[in-house]
């Protein structure tokens, strides 16, 4: 171990190879509250070359590692349990922006919002906009296949990544590109996106940039029951309108946001609000706006108001995007979920979730991407209270069970990480998990990268499925 630290220090400099217990504390958590794993050491390369050298040194030493961007993930995916934590936050160079081809190539530590800021002079932006976009990195987005409110219309990370240069856990460097129709190839890039750091480390990433819409219209619809808001969501989707974003916040969330520094002017007596944004060419946008307003009213909205200018629009969005953090004021800990359910069934599912919450005497705060059916039921609680923790855990399990039983999934954008590992067998019975293990084995046959995450290891039938598996 001391030899490894020495080797790594030679590569990155002693300041960026942390070995002392005190300094590792900050790297023992990501943004999943209440979970802590102490890494054996943390190493933070400053260049792409250093990153490659570090991965090779780790491979030579037989040491597993966990890649980490900004540590804003909500699934415990960046927790390193007595293995090496590979921090990529120093790799924050925007290598190129090409306005003509509308692409950018960046290092993995570039902050999501920083890329959009850099693209702004060209009238472009990076479309996937996770709520943590002011802090999270493109590398982390790639690993998690991150979403965000505007992914309803524009698609998730997968749909915006064009290429990546990846260091495999054995130190091999591979270039992954989205396959073109003319030259058949396995979609290795598609497989890598969302692999949660288990397939290797991307050292540069080429993404598509999206033209800023000509016009944007943001509406806030105010409902006196969450059921009405959910029905309005289903009706908007069923009507074939494709808003840029369609977000739902319930009363508990509204109150948390309104008491925070990001107070957005949401009606605090509302049972739920929908934040609906339509964008695109100026022509025809009014028709979509009218249709949204009509549907919301028909579903019982007390009021639908439009942001009058960019500043108000910004405020409405800030409130939504900081809602998760704002829940910190409700209790010391927060259980966060990320299930997706069929959009046509939002109202009955929310009702059943509320029933589960009541039965277990926990407070569920809903803030979610309603247009995608991507629920975020969050439960603020005190982890120091064993009884409360047990009730929260029981309620969350029931909610997940409910979402799976209606044909949904356990995670829409946060990833499985370590937090949702226990639900994977329920989600994928049969041979599916083993097939996933084999896909991983192609990239990382020795399971050195982010060990123990995503797929429960006992579900991988054979450690080395095929003799030629690691050549």
């Amino acid at each position, binding site marked *: 171990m001391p030899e490894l630290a020495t080797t790594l220090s030679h590569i990155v400099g002693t*300041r*960026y190879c*942390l070995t*002392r*217990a*005190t*300094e590792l*504390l*900050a*790297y*023992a*958590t*990501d*943004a*999943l*509250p209440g979970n802590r794993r102490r890494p054996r050491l943390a190493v*933070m390369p*400053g260049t792409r070359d250093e990153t490659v050298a570090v991965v090779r040194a780790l491979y030579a030493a037989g040491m597993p590692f966990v890649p980490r961007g*900004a*540590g*804003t993930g909500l699934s415990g995916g960046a927790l390193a349990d007595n293995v090496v934590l590979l*921090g990529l*936050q*120093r790799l924050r160079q925007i290598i190129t922006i090409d306005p003509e081809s509308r692409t950018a190539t960046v290092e993995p530590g570039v*902050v999501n*919002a*920083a890329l959009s800021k850099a693209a702004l002079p060209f009238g472009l932006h990076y479309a996937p906009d996770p709520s*943590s976009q*002011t*802090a*999270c990195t493109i590398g982390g987005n790639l690993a998690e296949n991150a979403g965000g409110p505007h992914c309803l219309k524009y698609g998730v990370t997968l749909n915006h990544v064009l290429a990546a240069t990846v260091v495999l856990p054995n130190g091999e460097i591979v270039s992954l590109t989205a396959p073109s129709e003319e030259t058949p190839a396995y979609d290795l890039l598609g497989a890598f996106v969302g692999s949660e750091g288990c397939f290797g480390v991307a050292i540069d990433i080429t993404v598509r940039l999206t033209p800023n819409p000509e016009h944007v219209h943001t509406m806030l619809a105010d409902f006196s029951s969450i059921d009405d808001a959910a029905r309005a969501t289903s009706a908007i989707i069923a009507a074939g309108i494709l808003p840029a974003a369609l977000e739902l916040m319930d009363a508990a969330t509204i109150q948390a*946001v309104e008491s*925070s*520094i*990001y107070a957005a002017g949401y009606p605090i007596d509302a049972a739920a609000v929908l934040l609906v944004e339509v964008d695109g060419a100026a022509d025809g946008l009014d028709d979509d706006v009218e249709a949204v307003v009509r549907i919301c009213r028909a579903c019982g909205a007390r009021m639908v108001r439009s942001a009058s200018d960019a500043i108000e629009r910004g405020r409405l969005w800030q409130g939504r995007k*900081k*809602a*998760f*953090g*704002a*829940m*910190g*004021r409700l209790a*010391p*800990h*927060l259980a966060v979920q990320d299930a997706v359910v069929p959009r046509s069934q939002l109202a009955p599912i929310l009702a059943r979730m509320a029933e589960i919450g009541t039965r277990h005497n926990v407070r569920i705060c809903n803030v979610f991407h309603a247009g995608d059916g991507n629920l975020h039921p969050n439960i603020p609680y005190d982890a120091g209270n064993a009884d409360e923790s047990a009730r929260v855990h029981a309620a969350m399990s029931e909610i997940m069970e409910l979402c799976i039983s209606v044909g949904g999934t356990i995670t829409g954008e946060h990833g499985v990480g370590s937090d949702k590992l226990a639900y994977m067998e329920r989600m994928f019975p049969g041979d599916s998990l083993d097939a996933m293990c084999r896909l991983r084995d192609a990239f990382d046959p020795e399971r050195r990268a982010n060990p123990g995450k995503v797929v429960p290891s006992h579900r991988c039938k054979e450690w080395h499925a095929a003799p030629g598996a690691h050549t």
Partner: protein
Amino acid sequence: MTRTAADLLPLRGAELCVHCGFCLQACPTYLALDDENDSPRGRIVLMKALAEGAIASNDPDARRHLDRCLGCRGCETACPSGVPYGQLLEQTRERLTTGRPLPLVARTILFVFARPRLLGMVMFGARMFRATGMPALLARVPGRLGFAMAMLASTARPQRAYPAADPDGGRGTVAILDGCVMEGLFTSINRATEHVLDVNGYLRVAAHGQRCCGALHAHAGDAALARALARANIAAFEKSGAQFVCTNSAGCGAAMKEYSQLLRDDPEWHNRAAAFGARVRDVSELLAVAGPRTAGSLPGAPTVTYDAPCHLQHGQHVTIPPLTVLAAMSQLTLIPLTDSDQCCGSAGIYNLIEPELSDQVLAPKLAHIAASGAAIVATGNPGCLMQIGAGLARSGSPATARHPVELLAEAYRKS
């Protein structure tokens, strides 16, 4: 390890942090050092561990990372959950100083600031030395000495005499905190402050017995002395009978507005501190409420950019009033400053204790100022005035750092 009473105090407010990481990009030291131990989220982890006794209060790593915090509180403005980071830091520094003396430079400075007569002598000496022209000559010398000289040189202003205004006092009575550095080195800004208040209808009254605000002491962890200074000031300003307590120093303003936090465990003083804090105003707030009265243009109609002092923006949430003050001058071209919300690295006496890191934080600020092309950087805090002023001088920039109020007073004088 031996536990003292300070060790056992709970870390009030830390439980609000849900580790979302939204503060990372708002932290100047994280941006400069790329290590989460030098970020608000990482430091809160360290502070919690110290409070819980999981790490010893003499742990050198914890101390190093906590010492490096500028205390700019940019993280508070970014925090959705409302973590009172500044208070956590002060609580922790208090905890740490219990078992460890501060660096000699810090101790000397804090000692001097707490003693009015000694402070007066030091400031007098500094003004005399400044008058020799030596600091300006030595300003370009590399290293800490040169920087200190540049800071001192940057405080030089021609003395102005202002025509007597006829204050009708219609906007209320004001007692001004003289401020240690403001009265000692930026004397002319204090005179300018008096003048613009007069012009805008405030009636000034004296607050005898006022002392240093104690902000430097609280930030450095000398809470006992900070509390003593706070009590003295509360008493002095209560006696003055003024409706408003005015300061032209963002750092002093933030500290005084939060006296009730500092004295939260003092039943006798807590409520008095809260009442006092409610009367404290930055000079720009008083002017903005008053209009302020419009002024002519500054000589040469210079281009101006505004840099928001952390303790005004994050500490007091005062963002618009300084711009309102600048807008009162006709023909003033205000150029937006990129990342004007980022700290300049001054942070009280930080630039003297952590010179290297302070320089690293200052560098992007200077680059943005240069890119703006502005001739004047307006900012309402003595530390920022000196830090940016020194940085500009040392980098050979023709631009200068000025307090918004001195610009306004100058414009009033010319019109």
